[in-house]
């Protein structure tokens, strides 16, 4: 229980799969307590014998199945079955002597589905529960009518309208969440890609500069290799694993730096070599994987660059966002073209950053969709219309 609450407290740090697991655990715990407290009491109510035997048994079986699925790590299956379990409980109450309880349970079931935060699950199961609720109110509306109601039709309409309204507003909630998430996610992915490219350049420049100083690239430096080996051997002593030798594993790690990994994956398909190579690929020192990206993020925290206040355009790189005057934007465009032509920003065939862009490559780049994050359609059109002039004077 304590672990469960600590996981909720730290849920922001959990992966998507771990969060889903946490949610299913909570729902099952809730189902267990709720079922244990309420079902035995209802046994004294006026249910038909079939309902009294069949539904609680089905409830128990579905609950056990959901818990088993969770235990064997089939988390999504467990999620679906936890919803079925709650649906059975709702139907059980809806068939009881007080239809208001059944109706309220429909709201709880919808809430459980909302809890999972999955739009498709919500549309399918939430839609089914809402539909069941509307039909249920049609059939049992006479038992839901209040003392001051003006008539059965109006009373039914209020119940049905409210249930449908609840479903629809939460549907909007999901659409809103998804669009906001997508937007933030796309922004993140674009920035991640840009950061990875810069990491690759930083690695190239760093190793070239090391070479000038008579040093080998980081991954070939024997001091670096020995330090990694010694630290790993020390740490591994706290987590013994008979199936692997840590020193051999470190050797394998440095060996991978010089290999064509795709070739290894092809040659050793579905072997331990492939498994471990894939695991370690993210942490190679000469690739912009997770290790080097985290390193760059950490280095960035300490880097004393253009500090100072936070301007609104700090993270904006489009010409529009940074330059309001049209005259300035045209000058910037010209400077940018010149920069592309004369500065070495691209990899050459020897994997050094020693190549610049040709006029045709610049045309392709400015025409590309991805470049709309830098130039607007209007600016790109201006360039394309005058591209010969750009080439003649700035190329």
């Amino acid at each position, binding site marked *: 229980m304590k672990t469960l609450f600590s996981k909720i407290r730290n849920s922001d740090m959990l992966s998507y799969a771990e969060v889903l697991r946490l949610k299913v655990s909570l729902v099952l715990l809730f189902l267990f307590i709720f079922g244990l407290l309420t079902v035995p009491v209802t046994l004294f109510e006026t249910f038909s014998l079939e309902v009294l035997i069949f539904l609680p048994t089905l409830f128990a079986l579905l609950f056990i199945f959901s818990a088993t699925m969770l235990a064997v790590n089939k988390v999504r299956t467990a999620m679906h079955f936890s919803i079925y379990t709650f649906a059975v409980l709702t139907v059980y109450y809806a068939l009881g002597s007080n239809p208001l309880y059944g109706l309220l349970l429909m709201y709880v079931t919808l809430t459980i589905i909302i809890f999972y935060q999955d739009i498709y699950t919500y549309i399918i199961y939430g839609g089914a529960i809402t539909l069941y609720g509307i039909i249920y109110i049609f059939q049992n509306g006479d038992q839901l009518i209040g003392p001051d109601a003006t008539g059965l039709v109006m009373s039914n309409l209020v119940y049905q309208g409210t249930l449908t309204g609840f479903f629809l507003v939460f549907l909007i909630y999901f659409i809103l969440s998804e669009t906001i998430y997508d937007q933030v996610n796309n922004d993140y992915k674009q920035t991640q890609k840009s950061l990875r490219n810069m990491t690759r350049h930083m690695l190239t420049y760093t190793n070239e500069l090391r070479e000038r100083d008579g040093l080998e690239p980081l991954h070939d430096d024997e001091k670096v290799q020995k330090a990694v080996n010694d630290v790993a051997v020390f740490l591994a002593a706290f987590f013994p694993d008979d199936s692997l030798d840590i020193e051999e594993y470190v050797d394998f790690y440095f060996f991978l730096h010089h290999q064509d990994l795709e070739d290894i994956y092809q040659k050793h398909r579905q072997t331990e070599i492939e498994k471990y190579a894939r695991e370690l690929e993210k942490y190679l020192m000469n690739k912009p994987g997770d290790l080097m990206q985290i390193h760059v993020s950490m280095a960035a925290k300490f880097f004393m660059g253009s500090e100072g206040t936070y301007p609104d355009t700090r993270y904006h790189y489009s010409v529009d966002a940074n330059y309001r005057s049209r005259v300035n934007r045209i000058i910037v465009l010209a400077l*940018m073209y010149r920069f592309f032509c004369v500065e070495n920003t691209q990899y050459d065939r020897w994997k050094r950053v020693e190549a610049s862009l040709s006029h045709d490559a610049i045309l392709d780049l400015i025409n590309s969709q991805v*470049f709309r994050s830098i130039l607007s359609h209007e600016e790109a059109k201006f360039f394309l219309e005058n591209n010969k002039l750009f080439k003649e004077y700035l190329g």
Partner: protein
Amino acid sequence: MTGNHSVSMFKEHTEAHIKKLETEQLKRKTLFVNVVLALLIAPMGIALYNYGSSVFTMLAYVLVFATVVTINTIFLRFPKVFGESRLPMHITILALYVIFISLVVELRSPGVFTMLFVAYAVVALYQERSATIMNNVLVFVVGVITVLGFGDMFRIIGVERTQVIDIVVFLFIFTSLLSLTTSVLLKRKRHYLSQVSAIKEDEARALEIVTALKAKYRRTPMKHDDYYRQVAAFSEALAEKIGMKNVFSERIELMKYMHEKAPSSEMPISKETGESSTRLSMDEVNQMLIKPQGKLHYIMYKASQLTQGDDNASNTESLRQFPSLKHTFDCMYTRIVALSAFIVIMHTDKPYLEGLSTRAVVGLLRQTETSHLVDNDLLGVLQENTDVVEQLIERAFKKGGRA
């Protein structure tokens, strides 16, 4: 270490960006809430009419809705009117629950009670911390007040009894479940925003690092004179081609002047283009200079990299999978190698960052925003043995080479 100031500025920048993103998102959510509120007016009017409410009562409800929609519209059009406060959102929440209570008093029907959930759902659209707390407290308190104060309305015809306690228990379940849902959701949303803001600051600083590295690597500085001279020639030809006066030349002269001297707000800007010599336009010209550590250089560098394919990109990469040194399916030895390599790389001197001690690295990894990067058990062992690990690295670097 001088980097401490840099680390604190990093946090300041990311916090400012999170706030900016939240405000942008709040505007979009307010738009949705406004649309839903406008849509609710008609069915509510019909319900009131059928329950025999007076025209005056119906008008009062419409007036409350119209006021809330207007306040929200003002917020959408002129957000600065409300400064940093979230007043329109809080007014909307309170108005919704007040409307609910007055509907209970007016109609006294069990069907009205379920409208409480619709009010809850509308407020949930905000997906914002203070709104969520208000929503959860209000739905429970208002619900309990309704059940205890107007219990008679639950006397459903043909049903023996509806226990007040049953409804309160139901409300408790409903509220606690939704509180859990929203707390998990809000925590993750905040985490996403902080990750996006952090990566934006990472990118801004990485651009500075990589351009500085490039300058060091190429040995000769950028020939800014060539840039300005050729752009001047280009602009003259452009003006001639489109048959207009050359409005660029004076600006380019100004840029050359500013490149050599410190930018000054006293410098006049074009009389011909009619732009005023405000600090803002001077700042803009300053941002156009061809300097290695200038905004334009960063923009151009980033733009030049858009040609690069991304070998490592995968479809699964998203906010749901951050770079980490402890991926779910990695075995313990992989995690150990990843962490060891990380500590050693951080320890090594690089042109852009002096080597950090193991203690400093552990300190970085223990921070809230980075603690999820490393296996918790491993980090615990590392923390307890910082000095030993430091000695191992020092010894390896002194002796050099593997045995």
